């Protein structure tokens, strides 16, 4: 495949022209996203967050054409807002204009979780080491994003920090590597632990608190079409002061957790059931409890070594 141009190599005026015109195309994993926007917050924020992503040219297919703009009405001028559109559908309520980039992230997630039923889409992170891919399902606040962010910055390949795409035919994991959404304390923790972390502009007062996006490493982006094979499922649970510990999880409990965290299990019907049940019987699953990020990573390394030996 010819080497593609990346967003970072486009001059700023060119980025703006594309966003305002026929759209700026990004290749994310195996998906094409074409983004249209007239908002300065996007013109400035997008090239920073997506610098290493391949550009999808106009003669290539984009899966989703999304738009982020000011919603119609007088608020265009007083306290401007941002709204996310797929076609004419606006799945969210408008947000303050300076939340535009975070909204774009959530909007792109929404596109995939509601419109890619070739995959069982699970709310989870995924990272790979030595050819073994691990899934990290977890409620918001479980610490999964922080954990995979740190793993990525320590040489693991990031497949996704938010949406695991399990191919409904063969169960393989299709990467969807995106800027990792870090919240509140996690931002400083990651910056302190990893000098080379590139964290974007911090956005205050979102529904999730303080939010900033960490740039994925170039290797994870470049290997975005290389599918992973699930080798284990880890349920991280960060609790301040907790001693590091892991306990195996029964397959039926893992099954229920996957189903609860999936966006389209009901839509997939029988094929979703087969996929989830074969996954939980094939790979081991563990609950992880830890009090510091380093403890969490040590647990994962220990379990990875154990699984890799088998």
């Amino acid at each position, binding site marked *: 495949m010819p080497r593609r141009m990346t967003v970072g190599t486009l001059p700023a005026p060119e980025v703006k022209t594309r966003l305002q015109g026929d759209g700026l195309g990004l290749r994310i994993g195996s998906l094409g996203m074409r983004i249209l926007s007239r908002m300065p917050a996007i013109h400035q924020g997008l090239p920073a967050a997506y610098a290493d992503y391949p550009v999808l040219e106009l*003669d290539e297919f984009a899966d989703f*054409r999304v738009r982020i703009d000011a919603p119609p009405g007088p608020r265009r001028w007083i306290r401007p807002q941002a709204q996310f559109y797929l076609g004419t559908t606006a799945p969210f309520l408008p947000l303050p204009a300076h939340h535009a980039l975070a909204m774009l992230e959530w909007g792109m997630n929404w596109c995939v979780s509601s419109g890619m039923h070739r995959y069982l889409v699970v709310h989870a992170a995924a990272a790979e080491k030595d050819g073994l891919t691990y899934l990290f399902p977890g409620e918001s606040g479980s610490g999964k994003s922080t954990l995979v962010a740190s793993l990525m910055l320590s040489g693991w390949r990031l497949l996704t920090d938010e949406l695991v795409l399990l191919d409904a035919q063969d169960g393989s994991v299709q990467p969807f590597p995106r800027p990792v959404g870090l919240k509140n304390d996690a931002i400083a923790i990651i910056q302190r632990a990893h000098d080379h972390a590139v964290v974007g502009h911090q956005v205050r007062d979102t529904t999730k608190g303080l939010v900033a996006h960490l740039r994925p490493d170039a290797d994870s982006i470049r290997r975005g079409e290389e599918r992973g094979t699930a080798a284990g499922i880890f349920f991280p649970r960060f609790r301040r002061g907790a001693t590091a510990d892991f306990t195996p999880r029964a397959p039926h409990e893992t099954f229920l957790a996957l189903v609860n965290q999936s966006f389209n299990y009901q839509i997939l*019907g029988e094929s979703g059931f087969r996929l989830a049940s074969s996954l939980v019987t094939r790979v081991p699953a563990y609950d992880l409890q830890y009090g510091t990020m380093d403890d969490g990573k040590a647990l994962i390394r220990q379990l990875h070594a154990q699984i890799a030996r088998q």
Partner: protein
Amino acid sequence: MPRSRDSSHPGRELISLFRAPERAEQIDPRTWEQIIATGREFNLLGRLYWVAQEAGALTTIPNGPAAHLESAWIAAEAQRRAIGREVAYLLKLLRGVTSRVVLLKGAAYAFTGLPPAHGRQFSDIDILVPRQVLGQVEARLNWAGWLASHHGSYDQRYYREWMHELPPLRHPQRGSTLDVHHTILPETARFHPNPDALLCAARTLPEDDSLAVLAPEDMVIHSATHLFVEGEIPHGFRDLLDLDALLRHFGDNPTFWATLPVRARELDLELPTFLALRYCQQFLGTPVPAPCSSDMATAGPGAATQRILDACYRRLLVPTLPDASLTPGQWAAGAAIFLRGHWLRMPLPLLARHVLQKSVVVPLFGEQDPAEPWAR
């Protein structure tokens, strides 16, 4: 960069794909992108998957766009399963209230496996019950958790006095929407189909004798009425595809074509039926036998009106790329059909009142909510 011949009209590309799916091979990636975006907006992708599969053209579609056709197909199949469950609940709930529940539109196609059902994406369930039992039906539905979605006192009156259905009901846990009709056009409309005639002719289903669908001719006439008396047709092309599939399916039986014009006359719905045949032929090449066409010819509007309607529907029935702005022609066509729809559905004084309510009273004073008189 290879440019497709007609890349500025993804809607037309989409229509020609429905007519000739084997053309998929010649479409370039940029046009595919626009076709997928347009088809998603107009709920056409699941249907296109099925049409391409039937034609053996699925494998000629590149992997990128094919994923979206397949995704929409999977979602449509899930809807079909959900409809089956909802209808089973409804039957149990309404047992004893009415001897038969008549399924309309999408629910009828899905439940009987009629050709328009394959890959059809829809969310509402429409049923028809006799007017006499409407109150009891509503009470039972409310009791089971179906809640009205329009609470304002004007909206309540609008539906209950003038419309042909209850205010749409929603089941908050399952997220389904249910429209309970007692006839197929507003009471105030210019055409007056007799709902009893529809109910009498409805066909009981072999699976369950308390469940029925409209007779073939009535099903076509109802679908035509829905499309060509409405003022807004966001799913116009999908509805036209429904009509095309129904006509081709029922048309295998020659008596169908003889009965259709007679029945349209009986139900006072000749004009919408005429328009349905006309635009099905024009857009989708639907075969209509000559005797039926000539029988329906007198049902059409005058030549001048026909030219205007053609100009409007030629613009409105073609799906458009959602992020392209409307051309002045499309805007004018939309406005004309909107006004015509309201004009056909309400006498002028009532229409004036409705416009006043929706454009002045509600924006200024908000909805008057009868459930919360203290709210304002």
